[in-house]
């Protein structure tokens, strides 16, 4: 798929068909995720792919931002202890969430290229999700991504560069 087609076509999908997503497809999404840039090449991200419906329902119970019934939920986590070791305070507090976000965008574009729908979720209880996923001490869930075959086509959102993109200096037009 053309890169611009994926960038322009991707939407946040919150309704899914009752159909599983094959494991090899999920693994391709994670392959895309780990090719994202990583500050200091730390690569302290960790990913947990959940496909058991019972566990997904448990996660959904403590994740108000998770809508629909996705075939999979991917927890994008960071080993904050490793991030601190690799990048100091900056690594732990700044680079770790930024890396998670960059990996997530790769994952989303790959999902779209596979014909899947996906949605990034930040509204969840981190402690509860950590317990449900049996995350070890120091590993924190940063984002959740719901993934499944789309049952909706969300409308094109408004996007404009006006007042957002400048050349040379802030408010400059070059």
């Amino acid at each position: 798929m053309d890169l611009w087609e994926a960038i322009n076509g991707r939407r946040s999908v919150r309704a899914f068909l009752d159909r599983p997503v094959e494991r090899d497809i999920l693994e391709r999404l994670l392959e895309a995720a780990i090719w994202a840039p990583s500050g200091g090449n730390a690569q302290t991200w960790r990913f947990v792919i959940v496909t058991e419906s019972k566990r997904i329902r448990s996660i959904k119970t403590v994740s108000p931002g998770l809508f629909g019934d996705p075939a999979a939920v991917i927890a994008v986590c960071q080993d904050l202890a490793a991030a601190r070791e690799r990048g100091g305070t900056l690594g732990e507090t700044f680079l770790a969430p930024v890396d998670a976000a960059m990996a997530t965008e790769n994952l989303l574009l790959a999902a779209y290229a596979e014909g899947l729908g996906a949605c990034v979720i930040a509204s969840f209880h981190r402690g509860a999700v950590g317990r449900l996923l049996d995350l070890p001490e120091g590993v924190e869930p940063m984002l959740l991504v719901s993934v499944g075959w789309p049952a909706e086509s969300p409308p094109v959102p408004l996007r404009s560069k006006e007042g957002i993109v400048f050349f040379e200096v802030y408010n400059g037009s070059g």
Partner: protein
Amino acid sequence: MGQVELEARLFELVGYMLTSGRNLLDETPMYGPFRLVDAASRLILLLEDEEITSSRLSTIRERIDAGKYSVMRSPGEFRTFLDSLVDALVDHMDSHGKEVIRRGKRIEKNKANANVNLGGK
């Protein structure tokens, strides 16, 4: 829906409300009304799935599901949507005493609209 599944769905709805209560301490205040009206929609949907229906409640749920994601588009649009929900409540108050809870097969129209989603980002 069997009793086990019903209990699980109720537990999940309570979980949604409790977790929302905690998370709203740290989230945008706009999500407060969003979670409230979404919880109302989920409750009505659960009752519908249990084949306990009321036409005015179903109408309100459909309106919620059609407009709730406006919270992600525009505060003004979301405010207008919330006002329209309250207007719809008042419109349906006249039905008080005439409406009855129906137990039986869920209205197909409602099922088709259950996944209406106008959101996106």
